[in-house]
């Protein structure tokens, strides 16, 4: 609300009193002088708030015998007793005199007067300000939660912001009318800047996505890499929770651990870099332990993508040539990144190909909910709705079996202390949809949703990056990845969900990382 107020020059400020804080606004209003200072009969005037008054206009109004200038100060405090916000205010005449309670009552708009007459001593009275200890007028909070419960029932009712919905409902009783702009959803802001240059002189750009709600994501079009994810903890403290580098040359150019990148054309492994499709054998780059890993020597995360800002985010495009790393067909890939007002990072993938091929894409940020530099996974709790996983052989390739997690170290179906379960080596877990990871100390929670049938859980066993962001050193177990994907080596396992994409077909995937806090 403060952000909106700043934009509108609406004069709301945050004030502090010892450990508490509250919102405050001072303004000038004008009312009809003739009807003023009468005892509590019904009034025909409605308090008009006029924030555009300049000093000259105010003086002119003061001299105009019909108008009465009043200076009003509004405070919004949180009541621990009632668990709701409460509106306090004081109203003074230009000579400094405080309005009496009767005068205040007489100024309440006509449509509220009936209610006021029945109940005024419990509705709007003078009380001691809980922080300042001075007399203030107050709208009594005892019915706020009922009011807000009714508002919440209306479709789209309290969706955006509780304080704004509440203040716009009760404020008018005391001449405080919130401008409609407060209700408009924040527009996501995306900015673009130059980030670096590739070895062959091409520009790399960085995009910053802001959702106006404290969260921020940064991407570069080299590798479509997510370089920063900044989200609040339960106390509102914002931290960057993804591992990465400060600059291109610090590590993104070779990206040995695939920090933040979009992995393709095939994420994870293909045994011996070889597969058969339509009676043809294809040989791909072998770059890891005798297998293809993460798209080969230079997978999608080490390529320069085209990029542009869209209506709600950033679109990245890459065309992977026929034969690149041994893959058949020219594959066109679109990946769209969006940061929602609900602190969700949503990634939509699409790909098509000119020849039958295999495609398996994923996003590869490393997370640490305590902050990217935390160094370990202590305090993290993980839960995965996965009954099965794909066990691996000694070459890190799935055996082809789909095994139950029950009774094994891969059973994360109930809240599990992540760090203590670490010796459960990065296994493949086949399942549907939801994973929840939560860090107790910061209260940060991340829910991962995907349309993909599998999720690779990787706990940074091999990471050794002494030149991380801001001087951080990332070592073993310093972060975790949850890579939504099709199972590894699917081209060689006809029982696994297929990764074959033929001309005319479209590979599609959506993965969503939803950030929230638990208090």
């Amino acid at each position, binding site marked *: 609300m403060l952000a909106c107020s700043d934009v509108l020059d609406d004069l709301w400020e945050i004030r502090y009193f010892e450990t508490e804080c509250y919102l405050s606004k001072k303004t000038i209003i004008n009312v009809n002088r003739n009807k003023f200072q009468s005892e509590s009969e019904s009034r025909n005037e409605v308090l008009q708030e006029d924030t555009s008054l300049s000093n000259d206009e105010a003086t002119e109004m003061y001299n105009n015998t019909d108008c009465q200038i009043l200076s009003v100060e509004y405070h919004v405090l949180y009541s*621990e*007793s*009632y668990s709701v916000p409460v509106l306090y205010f004081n109203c003074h005449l230009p000579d400094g*005199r*405080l309005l*009496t*309670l009767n005068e205040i009552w007489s100024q309440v708009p006509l449509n509220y007067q009936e209610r006021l007459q029945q109940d005024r*001593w*419990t509705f709007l*009275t*003078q*009380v*001691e300000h*809980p*922080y*300042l*200890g*001075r*007399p203030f007028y107050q709208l*009594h909070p*005892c019915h706020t939660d009922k009011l807000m419960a009714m508002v919440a029932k209306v479709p789209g009712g309290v969706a955006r912001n509780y304080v704004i919905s509440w203040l716009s409902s009760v404020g008018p009783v005391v001449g405080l009318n919130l401008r409609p702009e407060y209700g408009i959803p924040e527009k996501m802001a995306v900015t673009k800047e130059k980030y670096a240059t590739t070895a062959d002189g091409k520009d790399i750009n960085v995009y910053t996505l802001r959702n106006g709600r404290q969260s921020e994501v940064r991407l570069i079009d080299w590798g479509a890499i997510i370089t920063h994810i900044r989200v609040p903890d339960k106390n509102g403290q914002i931290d960057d929770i993804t591992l990465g580098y400060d600059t291109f040359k610090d590590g993104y150019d070779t990206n040995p651990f695939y920090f933040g990148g979009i992995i393709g054309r095939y994420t994870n492994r293909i045994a011996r870099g070889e597969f058969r499709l339509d009676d043809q054998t294809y040989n791909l780059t072998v770059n890891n332990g005798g297998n293809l890993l993460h798209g080969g020597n230079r997978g999608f995360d080490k390529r320069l993508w085209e990029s542009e800002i869209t209506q709600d985010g950033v679109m990245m495009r890459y065309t992977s040539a026929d034969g690149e790393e041994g893959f058949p067909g020219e594959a066109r890939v679109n990946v769209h990144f969006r940061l929602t007002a609900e602190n969700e990072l949503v990634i939509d993938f699409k790909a098509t190909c000119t020849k039958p091929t295999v495609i398996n894409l994923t996003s590869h940020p490393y997370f640490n909910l305590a902050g990217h530099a935390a160094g370990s996974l202590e305090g993290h709790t993980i839960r995965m709705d996965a009954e099965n996983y794909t066990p691996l052989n000694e070459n890190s390739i799935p055996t082809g079996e789909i095994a139950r997690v029950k009774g094994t170290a891969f059973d994360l179906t109930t809240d599990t202390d992540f760090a203590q379960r670490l010796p459960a080596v990065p296994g493949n877990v086949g399942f549907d949809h939801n994973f929840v990871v939560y860090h107790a100390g910061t209260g940060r929670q991340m829910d991962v949703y995907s349309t993909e049938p599998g999720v690779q859980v990787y706990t940074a066993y091999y990471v050794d990056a002494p030149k991380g962001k801001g001087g951080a050193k990332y070592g073993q177990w310093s972060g975790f990845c949850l890579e939504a994907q099709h199972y590894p080596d699917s081209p060689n396992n006809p029982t696994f969900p297929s990764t074959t994409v033929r001309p005319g077909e479209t590979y599609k995937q959506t993965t969503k990382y939803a950030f929230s806090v638990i208090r």
Partner: protein
Amino acid sequence: MGDDRAILRENWDGRIPVCFSLAEDEIEQEKPENVFAHVPRQSYFPLVTEKVSKYFSQHVDKEKEFPESELLHCPGREAVESVFMSTVKEADALKHRSSIINSMQKKDHKNMFDQFWPINKKLMENTDEESIKYIPFRIYQSETGFIQKLFRPFSEEGQEHTLDDLIKHVLPDLDEDGNKRVLIQGIEVPGETPILWLSEHLSYPDNFLHICVVNQPSMTISDHW
């Protein structure tokens, strides 16, 4: 609620000796005599000072301004009732999330000021369905303002919280060496008293425990004595 009826009775009848004297800067002629009164502890100044005001206003020529930036203006009994009722409501919000006060009829609210006990009994309820969630209290340490925080009657392990626990929670920096006294209803209450018992027996009619933390009086003979 109060099984210790004797304590409730004593409290209800409690009085404070007060000396009213006219402010120096209001004195026009000779200084009027001070007024001494035995004021009921469970009441509010505006309700018991009508005669005192009348007496002093005879000795003052002009109307001095009411200190509106410091004191609540109580032009009549209704204003005091309103402060009383809103405090009672806040106490029930803390104790029972307002469920009891909201289940009462409007006439009960209005009558509470006069027919206190039967209605108050309901507000003091502490059963399984309507257990007390937070203890309503305010701590007064200085001239202005008070400290009010959320505080549960029992710990997570089910142990009764005592007055000492509450003081430690709200004023962790209070002198340990006994320099300060903690007074409720004018009594220096033992620190190990369960706070729930205190809430049921030593609350004021507005259902709050109003707790004063004052300095230990010095042991040397002062001018006043």
